[in-house]
């Protein structure tokens, strides 16, 4: 159902993610309010989905299209998706340069109809239901297409996410693989402080009929191996333990960067500190 395990080049993934972080910081200079930190926390997982899991459609080449599907359920992380879509030639440099401007078509949440965007998200707790419907449709049609999604940990506070998880298990959706960006931050508090009953997450997912694994979400090798090593007998949830703002020391674990863009000095400081991330 997925690509050949041996073909994912982790060193190349690290180089890509470094350039993606640079590009996101560049774009951050265009607007004052931007979701930099939530994009940085899920970046390695989104990169893996596009470059290591989703199979290119052999009938389409330019711009690249995929056989498999992907929904960015945590819509506020969409800069991670935009920079990858730009790299793949699905979105243009102009598209990203016009981010959040009147002449552009990219906003701070993904908008269905924009190339590469399969569902409009932004309100949390919607993605799991949509991908459950997509995966069920593929099952009905008898395809081998897999549907992927990235959710925020906060979305697992929404009852609708668990409604969908129950249904995905009821419907035996082996073709559904979701990633949880477990950065442990809500908008207001750390999840572990504000909602300690949120944990343990893996046990909850498993008790809802899912196969689940938890690894370091910035360790592309670990994420890749966990996903590729799944049994394929149930819907699969990869819980990626991540760091909000990962890659920029002064952003890491500091929740103001959920919302704000760095000023000029902070931007230079952030750029200077970026390195390839291995874990």
């Amino acid at each position: 159902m997925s690509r050949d395990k041996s073909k994912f080049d982790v060193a190349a993934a690290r180089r890509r993610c470094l350039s993606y972080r640079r590009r996101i910081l560049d774009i951050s200079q265009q607007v004052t309010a931007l979701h930099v930190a939530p994009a940085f926390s899920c970046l390695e997982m989104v990169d893996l989905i596009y470059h290591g899991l989703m199979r290119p459609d052999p009938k389409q080449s330019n711009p690249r299209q995929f056989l498999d599907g992907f929904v960015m359920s945590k819509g506020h992380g969409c800069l991670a998706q935009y920079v990858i879509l730009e790299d793949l030639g699905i979105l243009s440099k102009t598209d990203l340069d016009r981010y959040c401007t009147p002449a552009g078509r990219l906003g701070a949440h993904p908008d269905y109809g924009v190339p590469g965007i399969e569902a409009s998200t932004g309100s949390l707790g919607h993605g799991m239901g949509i991908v459950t419907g997509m995966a069920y449709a593929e099952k009905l049609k008898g395809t081998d297409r897999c549907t992927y999604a990235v959710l925020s940990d906060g979305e697992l506070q929404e009852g609708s996410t668990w409604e969908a998880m129950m249904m995905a298990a009821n419907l035996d959706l082996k073709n559904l693989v979701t990633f949880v960006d477990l950065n442990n931050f809500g908008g207001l508090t750390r999840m572990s402080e504000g909602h300690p009953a949120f944990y343990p997450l893996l046990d909850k997912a498993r008790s809802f009929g899912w196969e689940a694994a938890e690894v370091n979400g910035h360790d592309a090798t670990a994420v890749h191996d966990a996903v590729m090593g799944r049994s394929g007998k149930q819907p699969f949830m990869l819980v990626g333990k991540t760091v909000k703002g990962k890659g920029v020391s002064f952003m890491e674990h500091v929740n103001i960067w959920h919302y704000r863009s760095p000023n000029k000095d902070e931007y230079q400081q952030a750029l200077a500190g970026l390195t390839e991330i291995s874990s």
Partner: protein
Amino acid sequence: MRNTFADTFYEAGKKDNRLAVVVADISPAGSIQKFREDFPDRFVNTGVAEQIMIGMCAGMALRGLKPFAYTIATFTLFRPYEFVRDDLCYHNLPVTIVGIGGGVTYSTLGATHHAMEDVALAGAIPNMSVIAPCDPAETRAATLWCTQQTRGPVYLRLGKAGEPDFTSKAPEPWEFGKVRHLKKGKDVCILSYGPIMKVAAGLAERYEKTGKSVSLVSVHTLKPLDRDGIAAALASHKQVVVIEEMVPRGGLAGLVKEIAWDRHAACKLDTFTLKDDFIHNYGSHNDLLAAHGLDLNTISAALGLA
């Protein structure tokens, strides 16, 4: 209406394997049993989980299917409202939301089961169409249209069971987006939609007994509203009466008044709606309508026909 919908959907579903239905634990009486038995893969029951009923429909439509969400009207729309708005309407997906028991049809179940505001709420969302047929034959026509349309999301408001025929002698066919004359007259025009057409038809008879020539019109498509058709009715009758089983704000009554103002209508115009109130009454559908002042005698008296 419920059975007509089920039979019609079954018929269409036999020919088009993209048609699917997603229900949220509707009772066996309301479930579309035959479709469920013959096409079990295209029948999904999410259980008491309406948000996902809508969310799954969106995902299925994004993958080329033509899903219908189906349960009691309040639960199709009020509980999962933001999912209807974002997942269906924002994406402009051709998904039909079928609401059983529009208005106060569930007359013994209390206000939790009364879809009194559904037309206003559904109609407020961009891209949404709203259809409310008045009898089984209109239900069939509307259902068939919904199975074939590609324009976007639809809220199909149905009654429950036992609605009489109002349209077999209509001089005009059912057409999406057009008002439909069930009878044509010259003096008084009564505009209505849905099962409360029974009150509108009764009022037409009472006017006829006084020697008036009466038009009876099914405004089955509430959105997009046939503004020209309504303007023509306002212009060609001395008196127009609107009867609807919906709260006063956001429904046909206010829209007809808006059109009357915009088009400089000179006719007398009276509107009758549910009260802006949660009433705590129980009984038959007619009893509930009476408690809201929407029964034939109360309306007749208000119009001087007692």
